């Protein structure tokens, strides 16, 4: 016997049947694995898509529910709108009971701020808050000058349109306030317009109590400041009326110069002396104080 004996291994061949079965098995296995891989890819894609949706949803939710502007209305109902970057009112708060009553039936949630303002003003008019001796104060606070300008313009147009349509006809002032004023007003739970009016009154009469003044309308506060008397009608007197009525910093009057460009972008000093008679008239679709 020699090494050739090992050639007996050469007689061993893979049977055709075995090869066929193996090929069939491998084809099925390959197809199955492709299917599983496809399923895995599909499942992974779905998960990725879901994650993306959640992420985008989260981002959108955050963007949507982050206020970037505040609009405050003060007639005597005193109301604040929180406006998101899409111009929708995401929250509304009342500073007083009159405001709460109005908000109970006026739906402004997730409505464009212009439409919301219109609804609110209509409701106030219907409730009889717009009397000849009232003043509609609308303030806008936002950190973006472009947005501030467009919001002021839009609110002016709404007030002007409604006034022209005869829906209501009361003096109105629409202006921007700084973040600082808004913050201080918020701390005192009053609208910025009322806060500035009270501040103006305190300058005239330092003994005035902030809490006591909160119940008065902006118009009343201005009148008191103008007359130098508080509640009891006592005169606190000032030598020079104009000097004594300087308005706190951060108040931006839209009506003093009537320049819409400045109204939209600038923060101006407020001069209540310009409204001594409390009356206003409309010019070119805008409500402006009488000169």
């Amino acid at each position: 016997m020699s090494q050739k004996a090992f050639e007996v291994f050469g007689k061993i061949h893979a049977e055709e049947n075995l090869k066929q079965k193996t090929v069939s098995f491998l084809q099925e296995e390959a197809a199955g694995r492709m299917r599983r891989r496809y399923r895995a890819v599909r499942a992974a894609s779905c998960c990725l898509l879901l994650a993306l949706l959640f992420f985008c949803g989260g981002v959108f939710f955050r963007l949507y529910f982050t206020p970037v502007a505040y609009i405050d209305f003060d007639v005597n109902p005193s109301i604040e709108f929180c406006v998101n970057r899409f111009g929708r009112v995401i929250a509304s708060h009342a500073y007083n009971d009159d405001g709460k009553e109005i908000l109970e039936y006026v739906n402004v949630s997730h409505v464009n701020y212009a439409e919301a303002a219109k609804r609110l003003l209509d409701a106030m008019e219907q409730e009889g808050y717009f009397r000849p001796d009232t003043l509609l104060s609308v303030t806008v606070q936002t950190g973006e000058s472009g947005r501030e300008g467009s919001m002021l313009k839009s609110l002016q147009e709404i007030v002007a349109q409604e006034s022209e349509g005869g829906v209501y006809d009361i003096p109105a002032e629409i202006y921007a306030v700084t973040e600082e004023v808004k913050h201080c007003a918020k701390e005192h739970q009053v609208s910025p317009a009322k806060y500035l009016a009270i501040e103006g009154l305190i300058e005239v009469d330092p003994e005035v109590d902030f809490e006591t003044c909160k119940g008065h309308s902006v118009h009343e506060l201005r009148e008191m400041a103008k007359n130098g008397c508080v509640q009891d009608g006592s005169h606190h007197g000032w030598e020079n009326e104009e000097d004594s009525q300087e308005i706190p910093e951060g108040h931006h009057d839209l009506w003093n110069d009537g320049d819409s460009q400045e109204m939209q972008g600038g923060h101006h000093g407020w001069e209540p002396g310009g409204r001594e008679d409390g009356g206003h008239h409309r010019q070119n679709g805008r409500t402006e104080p009488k000169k």
Partner: protein
Amino acid sequence: MRTEEEVLRAVECYADTVRRICFVHLKKYEDVEDAFQEIFLKYLLHEEDFESHAHEKAWLIRVAINVCRDMLRSPFRRRVTSLEDIEYEPFYIQKEEGELLGCILEMPQKYRDVLYLFYYEGYSAVEIAGLMRRKENTIYTWLARAKKILKEKLGGDFIESKSV
């Protein structure tokens, strides 16, 4: 994963080699079938390229030996190849050849592998060491011991014609 064409070619080229390794290790035909399929399944899933046909063949031989060993290690499949089982193999073996195969199949597994690879496949001891991931000296020792067993059982002049 390899393409169907690659797998078909590999089955056609290396089916006999793989079958022989299965024969050397496994007793039952069902086990051979399972091992055969598993070896080519590993080939199907092996994504690295081979440098040459020789490399591809060596890879398949190593995988085949490992798969067969794993099957034998499995407690569910622990079976020993014996001379009697050769009769069930579907090929004709002469008596003299049967004696040799019987003697080889009775040896420990490692000796069977080195004898088959050395004498039939023609690999050198160095190449077998690479295939089996063993030291060269181990392969020399195994070969020497396997030859000694064959000499004792089958006669002194049995495997003189090839040096390691």
